[in-house]
């Protein structure tokens, strides 16, 4: 079972935090801090597995992490999950985000936190892996966004027009997460 999924940047600022087991708010923040502390100390060419800190459940739990550009993706799992499998899962997650956001980078995650949550909800549910097929996940996520958009349009047509906020994208192309990742291999893009 996956106990928690955390995404934070190189300075420890959380970009996404989802816990599948219950902790108080303070504990959650402490876990994020402690995890950042453990993970940031790691060298580039060591293995991606860490025995977890004391807070997040002790001896049975491991931290499995990957570092992409400025972000750390950390999954805290217990012994029932395959460690190598979780590494692949992280890769699939990042690739899915890449497809959804077109060359995803940290800013995308910052400004579209809810969208990331929605995508994650299609992949992992209740601490267990729900779907690993990228296209399937994306299809579902997009269908739901379409539903939302149609509602907003319907709503707007009833009210006075409000200004739309355009997603914060400049014209130039920023290098995406996957291009700057430090993972040892690139997945084959079909």
């Amino acid at each position, binding site marked *: 079972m996956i106990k928690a999924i955390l995404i934070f940047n190189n300075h420890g600022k*959380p970009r*996404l*935090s*989802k816990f*599948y087991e*219950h902790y108080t*708010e303070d504990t959650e*923040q402490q876990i994020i801090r402690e995890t950042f502390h453990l993970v940031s100390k790691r*060298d580039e*060419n*060591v*293995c*991606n*597995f*860490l*025995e977890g800190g004391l807070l997040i459940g002790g001896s049975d739990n491991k931290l499995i992490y990957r570092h992409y550009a400025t972000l750390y993706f950390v999954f805290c799992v217990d012994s029932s999950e*395959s*460690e*190598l*499998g979780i*590494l*692949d*899962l992280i*890769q*699939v997650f990042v690739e899915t985000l890449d497809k959804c956001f077109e060359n995803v980078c940290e800013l995308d995650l*910052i*400004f579209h*936190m*809810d969208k990331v*949550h*929605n995508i994650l*909800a299609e992949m992992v*549910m*209740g*601490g*267990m*892996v*729900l*779907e*690993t*097929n990228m*296209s*399937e996940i994306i299809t*579902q996520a997009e*269908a*739901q966004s379409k*539903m*939302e958009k149609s*509602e*907003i349009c319907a*709503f707007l047509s009833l009210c006075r027009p*409000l200004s739309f*906020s355009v*997603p*914060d994208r400049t014209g130039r192309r920023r290098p995406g997460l996957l291009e700057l990742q430090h993972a*040892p*291999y690139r*997945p*084959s893009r*079909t």
Partner: protein
Amino acid sequence: MPAPIRLRELIRTIRTARTQAEEREMIQKECAAIRSSFGEEDNTYRCRNVAKLLYMHMLGYPAHFGQLECLKLIASQKFTDKRIGYLGAMLLLDERQDVHLLMTNCIKNDLNHSTQYVQGLALCTLGCMGSSEMCRDLAGEVEKLLKTSNSYLRKKAALCAVHVIRKVPELMEMFLPATKNLLSEKNHGVLHTSVVLLTEMCERSPDMLSHFRKLVPQLVRILKNLIMSGYSPEHDVSGISDPFLQVRILRLLRILGKGDDDSSEAMNDILAQVATNTETSKNVGNAILYETVLTIMDIKSESGLRVLAVNILGRFLLNNDKNIRYVALTSLLKTVQADHNAVQRHRSTIVDCLKDLDVSIKRRAMELSFALVNGNNIRGMMKELLYFLDSCDPEFKADCASGIFLAAEKYAPSKRWHIDTIMRVLTTAGSYVRDDSVPNLIQLITNSVEMHAYTVQRLYKALLDDISQQPLVQVASWCIGEYGDLLVSGQCEEEEPIQVSEDEVLDVLEGLLVSNLSAPVTRGYSLTAIMKLSTRFSSVNRIKKVVSIYGSSIDVELQQRAVEYNALFKKYDHMRPALLERMPIMEKSATNGPAEIVQTNGETDAPILDTKHPPNIPQPISQANDLLDLLGGNDVVPVIQTTAPTKPASAGGELLDLLGDLSLTGGPAPTPAPSVPMSQPPFLLDGLTSQPLFNDIGAGIPPMTAYNKNGLKIEFTFERSNPNPNIAVITIHATNTTEVDMTEFVFQAAVPKTFQLQLLSPSSNVVPALNQGSVTQVIRVLNPQKQQLRMRIKLTYTHKGSPVQDLAEVNNFPPQSWQ
């Protein structure tokens, strides 16, 4: 009131904050705005506000006031609202808030909604944070959705069912019928989650396990299709078709095949196929192989397959990828118990991993190395491990040191090697060694009799180099105290003897006393060592001076010791040599429970093994006083001995309350660590085990009646044990002439200080009435000074319902019993 700002705006604003304080200010302002907006009960902007609240929650700010708003959003009809509402519920709510129960109705309605996405949202939320009450209420709905043909919903329902089962295990049966055709799905998502559901059910209930065993052929078929099928773009990850599903199926096969021959049989082929055909250049392939290896190890596979598995692990160990090596070490650790020999083959690779830079790998390699140590490879392994101990991080040193000690103890090829190894550990990682190793080491050193001179010499040299490592210093000072005479006389055969004078030794020990580096315990050790040397060295005056100085030390422990030693010099000088004799060999006692009865009479080299002088003096002093009270205060010698009565452990004998705590609790251990229950003077049992207590009939010593009152008669019969004429073995026979049994009969005895007494356990504690039987008990008395035997006895029993207690003195021992 202006429309609340959007989430993006908020995020942009917060990012412009330069300091934490600024950020806090902005957030507080926004929180206030959100709160007032909630207060206005405005439906239009609630969604936006909650989204902002969730963002602030992620940053770490309190957001509990949004919980009820989430519920209102969930109840709304709009999809957007519901979505944010459910997300908020998952992030902010949990079982401990009562509010969450209000969701139950909403979720129930949404589970039956016409739009699949709404149903999906409800399932997701229930599966993430549903409490047991909610699960109980909604399990029926989930079960219905498990049977639907919509694959999107089916897979979510399956995982939701897993959550329900985890929360409320009794509901497992309810989902059983729905699982019938789960595996015939084509959709991989559903397959995957179904396998998870089946795995959960099998793990929880053995009945389910046997029920699902019949699915093994089907699972094997699915796996085969996955491997054999060509390239399929949807499920492909790095060239392998749906590795996640493969891994899940392998795991389920592992659980199903464990302990069951038929299933294991059915799986053998497919496992061999997967193991040989999977491409290992990418992480995915290795993930599958790893899972396969674990499965092969757990089920009853044929031996060829097991060898294949271990070889795969061996290959993993050589892989450049650290992750793979880590995983290999972990699984080898699991299999080393079962397939020890196979893992031994990879020993050199594992030992190389000790030198890896990665902390996680080093730790695994260390644990595995300890598991692999055996009698054959002990020398080589120990070299590597000692090298590792030198160079590793402090967090490892304690574990490594303990492991080395354990391994050395089990497999040491020779005593000298053992001591050398210990010395090496103490000098390199001395400060990290665990506290309980000090007494163990001391015990080890005393036992290797022929190495005493060598040991003390080496320890002395180590002490000259470095006095900062406390365990080393403690062991060294103890040894110097014990074997100082060997040190000074320069009698070492093993290596070049060094020339040390008594003054130099005393200098070193005094240096320990004054040094700032010494812990209080260490100071205690060195003071005692100096004291012991007073019988072994000739420069007694110097020792007297040192001891008297510390009589006014601030440290209470030191002060007490010094005062008592002083007393020893002044008033009780005649006892000093006896007290400070060499320690006998200590038997290794069990860590729990009383010490074994020791029988090593002939082995120690020192002269008569007499009383011990425990470094822990205060206890005996108070105990001796108890004894004095008892015996009426004659021969006022504050006995600083721990007199003999051991807990006759194997006989489970009673301890004598009479003699107070006079060392009866297995002795205040002669070693400072109170946790080591020391076994007492060996001579009492003279090399005998508990069985034959005395080996010859006493040469006709007449029995005597010791006590005869109130119907209770106690008779003593005597034997002299052969090997040691100083020991008299007395058997008491207690008989009862009254009409009523005497129950809870306890016999206790005390002797003057010059004797030592051991009481074995009685035959029973009921003395039957009318002389129908008797209670017998054996007493052994050591009388080295051949003084007249006197004894005071105490009897307690219950007679006719009331407890009776009596004291008596026994003086009429026949001369043959003690001469």
